């Protein structure tokens, strides 16, 4: 069995050499969603590569020979983003496929928005974040609230009152802003 495989490999190698088949392989691939600078890739703990914002493909300057192992890792994430490799495409052996196609997908990081609630003694308070987050119901006695889903960096938010609690009037402080690199916890809802 082993001998058979070895023979086949030798034949394949011979065939490749005979027809001038690729002896060197570019370590590269495609990137989706990269909209910030700062992404730095590394191969086998050595060669590094800076990938510019907006890039949809990349390739390391040094090629590798048939059968050479490659393993690309992310040395530095781009600003405000998290990139990852798709399905184990970041490592392999050159020549296993006709060309090396490493796939990277990047997403803007998301963070939560939450705040404190003071003096809420009745039911009925409903907050909204524009038309995005639906109705955020805050029950009697609650001392905090949060938006149901995290928001991407760079996204604006604005929290207002849709419905006042029965017999009370609430106001919102620090209710609007633009998401940065961190959770927002400074929204204040004060009820009287």
């Amino acid at each position, binding site marked *: 069995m082993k001998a058979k495989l070895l023979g086949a490999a030798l034949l394949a190698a011979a065939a490749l050499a005979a027809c001038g088949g690729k002896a060197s392989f570019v370590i590269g691939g495609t990137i989706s969603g990269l909209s910030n600078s700062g992404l730095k890739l590394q191969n086998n703990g050595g060669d590094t590569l800076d990938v510019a914002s907006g890039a949809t493909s990349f390739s390391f300057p040094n090629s590798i020979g048939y059968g050479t192992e490659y393993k690309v890792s992310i040395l530095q994430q781009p600003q405000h983003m998290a990139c990852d490799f798709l399905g184990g495409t970041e490592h392999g052996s050159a020549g296993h496929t006709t060309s090396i196609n490493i796939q990277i997908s990047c997403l803007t990081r998301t963070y939560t928005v939450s705040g404190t609630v003071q003096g809420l003694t009745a039911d009925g308070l409903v907050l909204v974040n524009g038309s995005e987050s639906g109705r955020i119901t805050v029950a009697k006695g609650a001392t905090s609230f949060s938006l149901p889903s995290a928001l991407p960096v760079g996204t604006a*938010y604005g929290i207002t009152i849709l419905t006042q609690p029965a017999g009370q009037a609430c106001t919102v402080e620090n209710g609007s802003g633009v998401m940065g690199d961190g959770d927002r916890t400074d929204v204040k809802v004060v009820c009287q």
Partner: protein
Amino acid sequence: MKSKYLSAAAALLCVAGLAACGGKGNGSIALGVQVIGLDRAGLVLQNNGGDDLEINTAGNANYSFKTLMAQDAAFNVTIKATPANVTCKLANNTGKINYYTYLQTTVTCSADAFTLGGSVKGLNGTGTGLVLANGSQTLSVAADGTWQFPTPIGNGSVYGVTVLTQPAGQKCTVGGGDNGLGAGVMPVKPVDYVTVTCS
């Protein structure tokens, strides 16, 4: 070889089973529909002009017509009734039913959308930096007068206008809208009565 006979026998059993329960339409395949974006009750679909399928649950889901169809029978899904103030569109709604086509029909619905806007007064001059937001939608307002967010909002959705950036040296507050605080539930008409007052 054995399995071939077995599967043939199973098929026969299936047919017998169906015949036994007297399925109208002499068939074995349920015609399905993918419903997308429905946010309220009241959608009624038909197949070949009958077999009403009433959908009263909001959300994205697949549904099946009651009457089973025979392999290769023609189907034609149509909309009998649309919920109020919603627009629904059919796609891939005709064909002959088989394993590949039984769930090819889609109905995509969206609440009719209207613009959100209002007026601003009290700004000192123009271009002082006022930016309004409805959640993630933002709008720079340069001067006193009327304003309107570029993207319309579906009726039934909530809205809430806030000041994202105050103009230089001034403070603006938001009022009006459907709840008097610059927020509300989008009605079946444009909102042009959110008020921004700056001093």
